């Protein structure tokens, strides 16, 4: 007499349906809809700023070019800035989602855990030492810094046997960030010129970012995106715990390596372009999870639309809210930190 197992069946790679979207179709629709705010953000970023430009003019400048002030403003400044906002947003959002999945920790993100600070420190050191401020050179240093910091985080952080609890991981990350930021800061204090140059960059800024910067980081971010988008199923399995993941046939070690490679590329490039920007990697996956649930196959693609939207709006906000600009990194902190507070107040701490 053979019995049947109880009703709950475990489908590998498919977490229980949760979030707003209950069916695949709803999820698909929501993902498609998420492009709309992104487009709106792009338009706002092109039109709004130190001088508001009517949309017809924006269109003319984009399509016809020209050498008048408006066209130059649009094409030489706002377009690269907008593109960069999108790229950096995608990069940090993807990195955050990957880190949260890998460390099974909803508080993990590249800003909080020191990855961006490591990248930035490496850049500052390279500029201070070599005097070379060309992004095509220091971007490699940025990767080095990001990789070292990511390795430290991974070594100390993964949950499970001997691993850190979410809070302990965050504490370690914050301590590490404090040290890295402090040392970077010390370098800037040695030289008033460097100090002035870097003080805008230090908090994450998209100001005065031109085509060459975009060109400098674009290839790396694209590769990072491709690597990241190959990972969703593996990350779903790893999220269930190492033992379960192996039992499900996931290649845990290679997933980890690829994840760290992706995070390094994405964070290194983003920080080299815009300086360390925090909380984006925390906010975007949180929002995505609320919409589609904890399935990486939906979360990672949403990182192509949600975080760049947030970035664009944060950047635009920084342009308009005060008379001189507020760096986008400051704005994301103003938005993201309260979100963190809300997160901590809503859940029982043990549930993290």
């Amino acid at each position, binding site marked *: 007499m053979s019995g049947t197992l109880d009703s709950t069946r475990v489908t590998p790679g498919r977490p229980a349906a949760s979030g707003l979207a209950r069916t695949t179709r709803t999820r698909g629709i929501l993902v498609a809809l998420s492009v709309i705010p992104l487009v709106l953000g792009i338009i706002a970023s092109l039109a709004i700023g130190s001088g508001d430009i009517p949309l017809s003019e924006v269109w003319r400048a984009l399509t016809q070019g020209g050498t008048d002030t408006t066209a130059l403003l649009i094409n030489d400044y706002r377009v690269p800035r907008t593109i960069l906002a999108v790229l950096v947003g995608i990069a940090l959002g993807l990195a955050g989602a990957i880190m949260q999945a890998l460390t099974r920790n909803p508080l993990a993100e590249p800003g909080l855990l020191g990855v961006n600070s490591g990248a930035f420190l490496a850049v500052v050191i390279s500029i201070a030492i070599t005097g070379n401020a060309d992004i095509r050179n220091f971007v490699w240093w940025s990767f080095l810094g990001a990789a070292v910091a990511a390795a430290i985080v991974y070594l100390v952080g993964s949950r499970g046997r001997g691993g850190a609890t979410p809070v302990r991981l965050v504490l370690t990350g914050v301590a590490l960030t404090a040290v890295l930021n402090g040392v970077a800061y010390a370098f800037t204090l040695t030289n*008033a010129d460097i100090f002035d140059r870097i003080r805008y960059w230090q908090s994450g800024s998209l100001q005065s970012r031109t085509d060459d910067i975009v060109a400098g980081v674009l290839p790396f971010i694209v590769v990072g995106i491709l690597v990241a988008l190959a990972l969703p199923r593996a990350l779903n399995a790893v999220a269930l715990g190492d033992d379960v993941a192996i039992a499900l046939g996931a290649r845990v070690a290679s997933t980890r390596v690829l994840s760290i490679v992706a995070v390094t590329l994405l964070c290194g490039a983003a920080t080299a372009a815009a300086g360390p920007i925090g909380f984006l990697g925390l906010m975007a996956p949180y929002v995505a999870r609320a919409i589609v649930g904890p399935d990486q196959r939906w979360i990672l693609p949403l990182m192509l639309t949600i975080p760049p939207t947030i970035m664009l709006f944060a950047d635009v906000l920084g342009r308009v809210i005060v008379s001189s600009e507020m760096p986008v990194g400051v704005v994301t902190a103003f938005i993201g930190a309260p979100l963190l507070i809300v997160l901590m107040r809503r859940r029982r701490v043990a549930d993290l």
Partner: protein
Amino acid sequence: MTALLPRRSRVLRVGRATLRWDARAALVTIVVAVAVLLVGALALTLGTYPISLDQIVASFTGDPDADGVRRIVLEWRLPRIVLTVIAGMALALSGAVFQSITRNPLGSPDIIGFNTGAYTGALITILVLGANYVGTAVGALVGGLVTAAIIYVFAWRGGVQGQRLIVIGIAVTAVLQAVNTWLILSSKVELAFGAASWTAGSFNEVRWPSVLPVAIALAVIIPLLAVFSRNLHVLELGDDAARALGVRAEGTRLIFVVLGVCLTAIVTAAVGPISFVALAAPQIARWLAGSAGVSLVPSAAVGGLLVLGSDVIAQRVIAPGQLPVGLVTLSLGGVYLLGLLALQARKRLT
């Protein structure tokens, strides 16, 4: 049957009063205190005008020509040394208290962020109100206390859990750091540079008036810590066990948060933020004294030594220039942290 006592405990009986302490911790404290005296004596001889120890001694035993030496020692060097030691003690005690409350060796006020609030307060007074030394100190103190209150309120949800306090502290710190950045960016470069330099903490130009506030704070707070320290140790057992033993968990935590914040805010107000002493000193003291959990007295001693030593390094390493002492403690703290991480990584891999 005193053989049962924890191996290193000693008991002192005076009439019907009994006091208990740990022999090894007491030994460590004494040794570190002696080290403080030695390094302090060394520090007396260092400076723009090198003075030898016998010159110092001579200046106090009545040699009229040594007036200049005596003035330098009494008015310039001694206050600086005293302040470094008591600031170190205060920071270490603050760190010990917070690490005990949060039950986490990383739960230190400079990470959770009470320092950042002090910096915000100071920045506002420097950049917006254009204040002087006293004004800045007051601003820092107020900033630190207000920040602590905000963090505590946000973390309160029927009580304050250590974990929640930590993360909310981190979040509030992030907002304040953004505010600080914003304040610095929106002001002129020269002003910003000066304000930003304050952030590294420095004992330059310290005279006796600067020593007074910190000394008073310690004089008031240390007895309070002594009275409540047993409650703190019971709290380490977990809220349930602590309540079972008759300790009011929330009340005790609140008292110690207030004491800890006051200690760190006053030091920050006096000399600017000095990081990582609150983090490292209690753990180093723990390691030396081999104690369970955090112990207050050895932490204070180690803290005093750390800051004094760091200040000596800050004065000498690029002499005749002076580094901000906060930079030295940051570097030492970085080394400490890496060591800690390496240890944790090793535990994970074995």
